[in-house]
């Protein structure tokens, strides 16, 4: 079977510029909200931040974090 030629990808910055771009991308990804639910069988399910099911979870998590913050300062 003939090998399918690899699809060309968009050029990525290399060197110092590439490292900085990757670093910014990692920081941005780390600050993005993330919701993971694991069922009884240990199967994880990641919800998109704009998923309606993720909204109440994110809201509750933010309230928990701010309450913990206030509690630690009190």
């Amino acid at each position, binding site marked *: 079977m003939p090998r399918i030629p690899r699809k060309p990808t968009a050029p990525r910055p290399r060197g110092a510029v590439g490292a900085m771009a990757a670093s910014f991308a990692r920081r941005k990804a*780390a*600050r993005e*909200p*993330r*919701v*993971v*639910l*694991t*069922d*009884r069988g240990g199967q994880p*399910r990641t919800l998109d931040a704009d998923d309606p*099911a993720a909204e*109440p*979870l*994110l*809201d*509750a*998590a*933010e*309230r*928990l*974090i*701010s*309450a*913990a*913050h*206030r*509690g*630690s300062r009190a």
Partner: protein
Amino acid sequence: MTLATTQMAAVTSQTILERGTGGYSRPRQMNPAPTLTPPLALDYLRELSADIRSGVVLDPGGALLAGLDALADPARDLLAAAGSAEEIHVTTADGAVFAARSEQHSLVVVCGRFALPSLIRYDLRLVLADLAGGQRPEAA
């Protein structure tokens, strides 16, 4: 120690060896280890991980067993919003929240943003098992 007492010990141990060591190795009735209480569970979790800032322990009905009152309501909301999920992990820009539940207890903890999810989840499962007085989970 005289020669006679030395020899007596040797003879006794030889007899035990020949008869098998069942008398020494059979399971004996022991006092069960005290199970972890909810307030101790939170202290233990904070000792296990420096990333855990605060937390609560709830019973299956949502009643607060240990932890800050201010965390109880949002913790109940989080568990209710997660449906039947057994473990919950939510990361926001300001921190991360982890929750795990068993048939007897629910644990919700607030951590820093850089907490390692697999470690926190393992610690939560471990403490849930200790709270229930059951067998500890295997490391993943």
